């Protein structure tokens, strides 16, 4: 038992001392994967008005808990090729930080899980789950369990990410003329 405890302590210290990249670094890496390594990425903050937040919440059943969001713009050859939105949604206890890439057709390029902090439900980071969002747009209802398949044992995380992506798509729809 004592040797086991020593082993666990060793793992804890070894893991805690590892360098961690920031959410912003991970977001940029995720967007490069989605829109190409050569894409130039810039970001700016966009303020959401009260009526915009209400309107998005009504349609998506998920509410922005802040009134400004960081929008990443990806471009290639001086032409915009896509946008990125980083958001936090509540899992069972911890927040899940995810990135949604949207192309200029208003469709999901891909979804990436930037930080998953729970001990259960991490299956939402698997490619087999995330790829269900590709090519979805604000016209898709994204009903969890129907349009987006559930994964047994990860229901709360699946629902959180699914309603989150719908919220992002509706936000993009509302803001696209001003981005």
């Amino acid at each position, binding site marked *: *038992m004592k040797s*086991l*405890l020593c082993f*666990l302590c060793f*793992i*804890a210290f070894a*893991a*805690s001392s*590892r360098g*961690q990249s920031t959410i912003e670094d991970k977001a940029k890496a995720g967007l490069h994967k989605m829109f190409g390594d050569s894409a130039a990425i810039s970001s700016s903050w966009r303020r959401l008005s009260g009526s915009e937040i209400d309107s998005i919440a009504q349609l998506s059943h998920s509410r922005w*808990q*802040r009134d400004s969001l960081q929008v990443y713009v990806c471009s290639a050859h001086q032409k915009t090729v896509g946008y990125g939105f980083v958001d*936090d949604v*509540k899992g*069972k*206890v*911890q*927040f899940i*930080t995810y990135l949604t890439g949207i192309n200029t057709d208003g469709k999901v390029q891909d979804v990436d899980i930037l*930080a*998953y*902090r*729970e*001990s*259960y439900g*991490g*299956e939402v*980071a*698997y*490619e*087999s*789950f995330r790829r*269900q969002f590709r090519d979805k747009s604000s016209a898709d209802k994204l*009903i*969890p*369990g*129907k349009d987006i*398949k*559930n*994964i*047994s*044992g990860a*229901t*709360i995380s699946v*629902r959180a990410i699914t309603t989150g992506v719908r919220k992002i798509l509706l936000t993009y729809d509302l803001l696209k003329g001003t981005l």
Partner: protein
Amino acid sequence: MFIALSFTLAASAQETTSIGGYGELHYNEPDGAARGTLDFHRFVLYLGHTFNEKISFKSEVEIEHTKIEATGSGGAEGGEVAIEQAYLDWHFSEHLGMKAGIILAPIGVINQIHEPPTFNGVERPSVDDVVIPTTWREAGAGIYGSFAENTSYQLYAMAGLRAEGLSGEEGLRGSRQEALESSPMNPSITGRIDVVPNTDLKLGASFFVGSTTEGDSALGSGTVGLVSANAQYSTNGFTFRAVGAFAAISDADKINAVYGNDVADQIYGYYIEGAYDVMPLLCAESEFSLSPFIRCEKFNTQAKVTGFAANPLYDRNVTTVGATFKPTFNTAFKIDYQFFNNAADVNTKQLNFGIGYSF
């Protein structure tokens, strides 16, 4: 789903506390003259706290059968208040996390995920009662994470089982210590691997191994080794679940000699279950689900014995036929009918109604 009592603008910046829970009310009516009973079987509260984005506390406190009362001469069954989970969770990365506290043995399906809307049938499967002694929790610590795309692991050391509580009828169930002044003398190792090849299929394999005799030479090693496998498959409204477990107990004959018990050398059990959501056929636009299901269980808590004859009463089958109606993913109304029989040809039946929720 947990409700945030306080919300952070930046997920990682502040501490938050969450509450949640689940519960289930059952009506059980055995076939024949016996009257039915209404019982709020489980009322569970979750309490969680995030200290920072890596470290959190999670707990589950359960009240069974609504209240505690002495088991008196009237034979009334006393309820139970129990801490079923209470642990610190240090999540280093998606590849490695560590838990320490009262943790669940990661065996089978129901022992880890037992919120009533997540399974069919009013009562939990019998295999998840006597073969996998749900809710199986002990004080312990260990690691979890994913080591490849679509694959996750858990590996824990925890307080072991005690030979004194092993029995022929209920297998390992009575031998759990449940972190109540538990002995560290039978340290045990348990773990599992889950693979999700695609969103339709989830496969799991788990094990537990440890001594039960605290080094008492009169009892022998009393090593319990348990292996379990499970598969969950869903497609086009159809869901399928299969769980199997096999346990071997060494020196069961010595344990029986000391305690005058009837512990088996080997125990096994399995069940298969199929369900189909008919709601899309009744109302295509409905977000409700209505799933008739059938579950067939086979389990034997005296599959192999030494020095005495196995009791045929413990070689059992249970067939459960019913339906689960879910107006939301986390609320359920259930009805089922169960057929119990065994190798001694004793056959009984039971009607069950239930409601369940989680949030």
